[in-house]
């Protein structure tokens, strides 16, 4: 499994890890019921803080993306929530792809698109109304 958080990116490592697990599920690299790497081995492999891995797994469990079975490890959820997540991501991907294509057609660069998304996610919708 290829998880590669970038500690220098400014985005919390546990969030990057969560996104990468979700992405692995979305692409089918991880299937419902399959086991994820153990927290300790993963921390050792990535040379990141074990508490960070534990936090990512806890949050993923809270979002019902994975199940933590005591003593047995972490598994991709087999329930509807995980399925729905996959479906949502697929739908989302299509929407984003269409938006990116339209922006490209208008001559907006990748870097500008990235910043637009970042600004949007940071809650800038209401403040960007002055021609921004």
């Amino acid at each position, binding site marked *: 499994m290829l998880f590669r958080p970038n500690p*220098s990116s400014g985005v919390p490592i546990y969030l990057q890890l969560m996104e990468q697990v979700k992405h692995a599920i979305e692409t089918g690299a991880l299937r419902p019921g399959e086991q994820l790497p153990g927290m300790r081995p993963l921390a*050792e492999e990535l040379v990141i803080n074990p*508490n960070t891995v534990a936090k990512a797994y806890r949050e993923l469990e809270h979002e019902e993306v994975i199940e933590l079975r005591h003593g047995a490890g972490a598994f991709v959820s087999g329930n509807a929530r995980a399925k729905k997540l996959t479906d949502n991501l697929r739908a989302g991907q299509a929407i984003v792809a269409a938006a990116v294509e339209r922006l490209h057609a208008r001559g907006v660069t990748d870097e500008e698109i990235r910043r637009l998304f970042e600004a949007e996610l940071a809650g800038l919708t209401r*403040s960007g109304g002055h021609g921004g």
Partner: protein
Amino acid sequence: MADPFIIETADLRKRYDGVDALRGLSLQVPAGSIYGFLGRNGAGKTTTMKVLLGMARPTSGRARVFGLAADEQDASVEIRRRTSFVSDEKDLYNYMTVEAMIRFTAPFFPRWRVDLEQRYLRKFDLPPDRNVKALSRGMRTKLALLLALCRGAELLILDEPTSGLDPAMTEEVLQALVTHVAGEGMTVFFSSHQIVEVEQIADHVAIIDRGRAVVTGALDDLRERYRRIQLVFDNEAPAVAFRAPGVERVQRNGRVVTLLSSAGTKQILEEARALNPASVDVVPVTLKEIFLETIAVEN
């Protein structure tokens, strides 16, 4: 009741020969954390460690380790019994072989871990028969780390553990720390001026500058809170002072205003919006940027 913080200092001050090495340092190191103590050379990192270990007396303020007062003699003995310390100098006996150094050290510690000793000897690829004197800097560091990890201590204090190591050795040392914390549930407090390694393995950090902690907290929390906000105006940027509490720094340059915020981005954006900027950008801030900005402000 158990102290939630393994290390706690409050308004710690230390004056050496007319120089203020610590000027009101306050730290809280949670149990089980890997705590990165980040600062430039001469910021007060080593002095702090010496005070925690009872090797230097604070001029004023409070320093507690395991809830014990670091400046009381009996308490300090107890602190050192439960703490492993690796100094920047890596105190080793040059005339001994690696094996002799380990055999010499082990009997001092009743909780010595032979299992870990064997594991790290192999993992670090240390030659048992070689004289300490003939070890490379990286090998010396790894031997000192082995001796520290095998003591069965609850707290590991490391002064610049990776200074002078190449990237491969650095990664090996960091991996050993991560593995050890995961397996043994201990607390690690390490100083560094290498931002990259701190952001890689630490879950809590303090940025210390000229004897004071200028930023402290959970690293993920800092990453989530800090933002750079750029406002671009159609004409000359208005010269207003931002009153929102999280504004750390404001730079005004022609039509552009750049803000560094440490909290409350939403509130700052509301204030910014009232100024009618042509565009607003918000981007995450890396630990390196936080470090450089906070140090710069102090200067």
